[in-house]
């Protein structure tokens, strides 16, 4: 369960706003995202391309580049707001306490240095080890991530390794400083399914051994179900649903989550037709008023022209939707209040 003020919270994001001032207009890639990651737990962030999941991760690392900018919110880690601290302090945290691995291991490794050198560099910068010690640590890390013959592999360049091996090297590098939080952005998307199984198994083992938290970003609902304790579902820059993994998969509340879960083909359940979510993701330069999902939503109602609040539908289960906790349309006279209904009418006439 994701609680806001849990003592065991490792990282807390509140109302994060990361915007990109593009030539075509302002893109609110992340627009008021809040969630927290518990100590030792794995948080899955799921959503389709453009929903803001990667930008959220890069905001935590403070790796947002122009024309992007974090314009609001807080990211609390170890009692500090990562958005406010000076660059050199952030550099200390980045790589030391929070590490990140990316989807494409070939573009995130330096092609002109050996794998051993790159890990040793990370270790000596962040751990203050001497050259010899760092080398030993690099080889030890390569062996920890299941690379056979690590001493020889440490001498090899990234292009000499397969995709799965490169991702192992990335993980070895990310974990070489014993981070408390590992951010993994689509870590297995570029890999074949049998290699993905190897990497997921490895991440599980290392999570146990190092007692670290993981923020796992993926579009693959299978990978989330396999790995995550808590889940955040993002759509068009906002969190639309959040709960523990079982609740999200068994009792999804938000129509988008329900649509996603219904639309994936599942092994062993051959159906004649797949459920579909009609339409496409809204243009980030021209978002609809009110609920961002309403034009694709099978349950859309007049009140959806007012942005729904992100509220609890069960203890620890939040959803950004006007439907009642049971999933029914709100009846007249009940919550949402009359004022809200008036607002809805006003919004409608304004359109």
């Amino acid at each position, binding site marked *: 369960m994701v609680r806001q003020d849990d003592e065991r919270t490792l990282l807390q994001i509140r109302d994060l706003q990361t915007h990109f001032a593009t030539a075509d207009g302002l893109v609110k890639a992340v627009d008021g995202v809040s969630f927290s990651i518990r100590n030792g737990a794995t948080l899955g962030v799921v959503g*389709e*391309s453009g929903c803001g999941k990667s930008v959220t991760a890069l905001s935590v690392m403070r790796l947002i580049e122009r024309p992007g900018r974090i314009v609001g919110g807080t990211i609390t880690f170890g009692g500090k707001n990562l958005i406010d601290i000076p660059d050199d302090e952030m550099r200390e945290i980045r790589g030391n306490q929070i590490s990140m691995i990316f989807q494409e291991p070939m573009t995130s490794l330096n092609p002109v240095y050996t794998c051993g050198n790159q890990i040793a560099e990370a270790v000596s910068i962040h751990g203050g080890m001497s050259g010899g010690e760092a080398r030993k640590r690099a080889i030890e890390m390569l062996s920890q991530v*299941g690379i*056979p013959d690590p001493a020889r592999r440490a001498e090899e360049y990234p292009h000499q390794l*397969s995709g*799965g*091996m490169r991702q192992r090297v990335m993980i070895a590098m990310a974990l070489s400083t014993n981070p408390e939080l590992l951010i993994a952005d689509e870590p297995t998307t570029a890999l*074949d*399914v*049998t*290699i*993905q*199984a*190897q990497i*997921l*198994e*490895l991440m599980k*083992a290392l999570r146990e051994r190092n007692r670290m938290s993981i923020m796992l970003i993926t*579009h*693959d*609902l*299978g*990978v*989330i*179900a*396999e790995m*995550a304790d808590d889940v955040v579902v993002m759509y068009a820059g906002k969190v639309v649903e959040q709960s523990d*993994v*079982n609740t999200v*998969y*068994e009792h999804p509340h938000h129509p988008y989550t329900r*649509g*996603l*879960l219904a*639309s*994936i*083909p*599942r*092994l*062993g359940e*051959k*159906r*004649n*037709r*797949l*459920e*579909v*979510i*009609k339409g*496409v*993701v809204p243009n980030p330069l021209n978002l609809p008023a009110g609920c961002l999902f309403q034009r694709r939503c099978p349950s859309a109602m007049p009140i959806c022209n007012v942005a729904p609040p992100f509220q609890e539908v069960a203890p620890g289960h939040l959803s950004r939707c006007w439907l009642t906790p049971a999933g029914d349309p709100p009846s007249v006279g009940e919550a949402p209040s009359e004022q809200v209904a008036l607002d809805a009418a006003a919004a409608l006439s304004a359109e």
Partner: protein
Amino acid sequence: MSMSSEQTRNPALETQPGSVPVPAGEEQPLLVVDNLYKHFEIRGGPLGVARIGAVRAVDGVSFTVRSGETLGLVGESGCGKTTLGKVILRLLPPTSGRVIVHGKTIFDLPTAAERKAGRKPIALSGQAMKAVRRDLQVVFQDPYASLNPRMSVGEIVGEGPLVHGMSNKEQREELVRELLAKVGLNQSHIHRYPHEFSGGQRQRIGIARALALNPEFVVLDEPVSALDVSIQSQVLNLLDDLQQELGLTYLFIAHNLAVVEHISDRVGVMYLGALAELAPVEEIYAHPGHPYTVALLSAIPDPDPRHRKKRIILKGDIPSPANPPSGCRFHTRCWLRERLGNPERCVAETPELRDLAPGHAVACHFAEDVSAENIAMAARSSSI
């Protein structure tokens, strides 16, 4: 918009010479692929011209596809599934082997040994091949790379009909509008350019292009892999509808076993250029006969957190197709071989595809030993 396939097929195209005759009440398979090889030569040596080896991308593949069915072809990257699709369409020249469409031999290239024994190669001329191509179309994986950014949607979809003799511009535009409606695109988008569309819409343009010549057989090469989850299901349903409406036959190439299960009637599993297993879809998912198929199925994360299971984790990486292992190509990573005490036969003898049950072919010497008990034991002893 409902149209019968007769209406879409343009009479001007129908009279083209060399069109493939469709035998009445046909029993023969629509497509026969017989012992197909595609090797890419590796050149090296001091001058860079000597042959120093070959990547055996497709290494002796045989199967048939019946009219109206969908054959799914799955395998991991580098297994040769895309190359196989391209060689069948002759988008890549084959090394040897035979492909027959509707009883018409597209090519029949003997191996070097057969050539010495006097067998002559047969291949359709360019002109004849052009006529056959109308019936064989393809949709590619990447909807960004497979559409020419300088051509409008009307030009992209109408290019095939133009090349095949539909010179009347109004007629062509009418056809393109019908096709756009058929694949669920707005007809008024005919003058737009690819960059104005989303990934899912582009894939629909690619599908409209493939259907423009009213083909019988379409190779779908990872048509939904580049798409988001919610768009994937839209395109899969569209492909389903079009198949029923137009009586299309599909070769559906993909790496996602759940997607392939959804759309296919029969499924072939490829590993390192060869078929490991070929069976009806229910059969291959309920009773996989090849240890590689078992491992592939086991590796897929189940989108249900209550089903966190022990998987069979294959050791190591896929070997290089330039130097595949001797005997059974899978023996270096095979969990079943390990369970059986590493029999020599797997290293020494290449397993042929053989019938495990009627219509269910497996290339494994020990397929009978693939049991629930052995699978469970292998999963339990799997380690990273």
